[in-house]
């Protein structure tokens, strides 16, 4: 019990929402309409007198965003928080960040807390980059002394050296995000709370930031709470995970146990069969059409594990020397990896079912887009389904902890002690 850095006891949060009760039914009487109007007016007047917020609408509903949440988090843990939209993740973060108060319950935090709920909080467009570093840093909880000490590091990390004294409104959006991230990356609180802020910005820079936060926090034993929808990021960073479902604590345990259960509840695009023809609505008069992709290996995919799938297609013309490409790309569309295979030298028109198999998926845990295309040497590309659907790749049995994404290949490394050297030059 002692040594817990965050203790959450029976936390509940209720919101009151009002809404107008549906469309007027045809047979609503005038009397009923007046009654509703009076009811609402009386309620508003009462709220005014009592000093409560005025809620619009003639029907009031109580909505419990969180109910009886109990948690104990040990120092030095990196804990993921997952759940569908509306599960209460952001509410929990807001309560932990003291932005909103719980309706019931109590939380004890032992240490300085910094919350990253938004990138660039407090940035003012009229102020220069330099001034905004001090402003943003103070917002995030750094003391002026701390900011001054780390100032040069922050500027170097953000790579905005020359623009330090121009107003931020002149920055490009990329520079803006880099500056905001740079300040955030140099936070050193005991407890760090991060919302899905990392869903924006240049992917490359994001990883740099994440790596820096990860390294600083891991080396110094700081505690991180990390909310994300990206199972790959959660799986590679967080040892344990909290799963919130509709305001209740569904599960809290080792990430390896929580994530599969969560995914079993149904993530989009984890369907076994994907209707490709619906994804790319080309002219249906095209001679060759890819129809469906069926995953034959287990979903979600895992790094290092074999993958198998079946593609069904239909062709109106005889196929000569066709080849199908199966590619994985980043969500932005950069192709990372392609599997290709040749079809038979000649084939008639009609329907085909093509099975493919690869030994070991060399992709790091992340979310990837899938592209499938069919072409012949004579006619070129016949049909292409670009990355309009995505798949999760989770860590496999042999996955190491790393924030680097992309393709990972096996290779041979031979280590030998080098007695000729004494150190760096």
């Amino acid at each position, binding site marked *: 019990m002692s040594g817990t850095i965050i203790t959450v006891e029976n936390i509940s949060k209720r*919101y009151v929402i009002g809404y107008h009760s549906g469309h007027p039914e045809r047979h609503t009487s005038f009397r009923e309409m007046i009654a509703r109007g009076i009811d609402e007016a009386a309620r508003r007047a009462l709220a005014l007198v009592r*000093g*409560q*917020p005025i809620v619009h609408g003639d029907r009031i509903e109580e909505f419990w965003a969180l109910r009886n949440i109990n948690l104990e988090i040990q120092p030095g843990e990196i804990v993921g928080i997952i759940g569908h939209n509306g599960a209460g993740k952001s509410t929990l973060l807001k*309560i*932990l*960040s*003291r*932005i*909103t*108060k*719980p*309706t*019931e*319950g*109590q*939380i*004890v*935090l*032992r*240490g*300085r*807390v910094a*919350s990253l*709920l*938004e990138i660039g*909080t*407090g940035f*003012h467009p*009229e*102020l220069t980059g330099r*001034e905004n570093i*001090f*402003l943003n840093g*103070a*917002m*995030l909880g750094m*003391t*002026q002394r701390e900011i001054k000490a780390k100032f040069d590091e922050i500027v170097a990390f953000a790579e905005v050296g020359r623009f330090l004294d121009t*107003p931020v409104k002149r920055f490009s959006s990329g520079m803006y995000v880099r500056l905001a991230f740079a300040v955030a990356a140099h936070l*050193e609180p*005991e407890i760090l709370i991060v919302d899905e802020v990392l869903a924006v910005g240049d992917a490359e820079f994001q990883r740099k930031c994440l790596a820096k936060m990860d390294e600083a926090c891991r080396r110094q034993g700081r505690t991180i709470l990390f909310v994300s929808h990206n199972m790959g990021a959660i799986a590679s960073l967080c040892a344990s995970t909290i799963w919130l479902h509709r305001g209740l604590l569904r599960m809290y345990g080792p990430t390896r146990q929580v994530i599969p259960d969560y995914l079993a509840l149904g993530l989009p695009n984890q369907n076994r069969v994907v209707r490709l023809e619906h994804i790319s609505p080309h002219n249906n008069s095209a001679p060759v059409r890819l129809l469906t992709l069926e995953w034959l290996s287990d979903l979600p995919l895992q790094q290092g594990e074999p993958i198998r799938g079946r593609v069904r297609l239909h062709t109106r013309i005889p196929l000569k020397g066709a080849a199908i490409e199966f590619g994985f790309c980043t969500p932005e569309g950069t192709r990372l990896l392609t599997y290709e295979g040749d079809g038979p030298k000649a084939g008639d028109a009609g329907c085909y079912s093509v099975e493919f198999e690869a030994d070991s998926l060399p992709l790091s845990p992340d979310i990837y887009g899938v592209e499938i295309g069919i072409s012949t040497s004579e006619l070129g590309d016949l049909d292409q389904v670009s990355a309009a659907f995505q798949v999760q790749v989770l860590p496999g049995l042999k996955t190491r902890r790393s924030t680097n994404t992309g393709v990972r290949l096996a290779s041979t490394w031979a280590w030998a002690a080098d007695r000729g050297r004494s150190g760096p030059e």
Partner: protein
Amino acid sequence: MGDNRVTIIGPAGQEPHYWLELWRYRELFLILAWRDLAVRYKQTVIGVMWALIRPLFGLIIFTIIFGHVAGLPSEGSAPYPLMVFAGMLPWTFFSTGLAEASYSLANNANLLSKVYMPWLIVPTATVVVALVEFLIGLCVLLALLVWFQFLPGWQIALLPAFVIFLFIATMGPSLWSTALNVRYRDFRYVVPFLVQFGLYVSPVGFASSIVPEHWRLFYSINPMVGIIDGFRWCILGSQTHLYLPGLAMSAGAVGLCLWLGIRQFKKVESSFADLL
């Protein structure tokens, strides 16, 4: 370098360390004040000049209307413009502070929904901006004293006390106003009207000695009456006579406004975080 500060988060109504928290966030308070100030004067060359132009302009208008046209008497033998300015100085601080602070919570809503800070520092930071303009106004006062070759008496030493009094008098209504503006967004339209009304009711353009004796105590319920009288007494010295019962009444009104303001503010802070 570990900071083992323990923070306990509970439902609304439990704030054991409200004032300690404010002290802890003093740095952020100063940063916010600096930010508001910097932004105000960043792009306008006229910006700094504006702090000088406004009071001077008001001075000229009031001297002409109340002094010459209406022929109202000044205090003792002090020049009318000087008497007016001694009243304009605190009034400008009050009206600017109140006006700016009234929108401060609503304007910073986005920030407050992402970062925790005791809300009290937000309107207080905007009042600090008014303080800086006040200091500029003091320089103008100095220039006027030189112009009219008027030497203040020993009373001027008490001016800092009245400045503090003025600050407190501004905070009360400002807190109340900004809290109310969070609740009822259209309250912001009421504020300029009230300020305008106050400008003519308060003894800015005229001396409060023209108010009939038996009404004077009642008149002093307006907290600015006591403060402006005090400022005039400090600056004009023995030319004026400080009406002490009035001062006490105004002080009481200031205390009441402050208490009401803080109470309303704390109430809104704990219940309206969700509705910002």
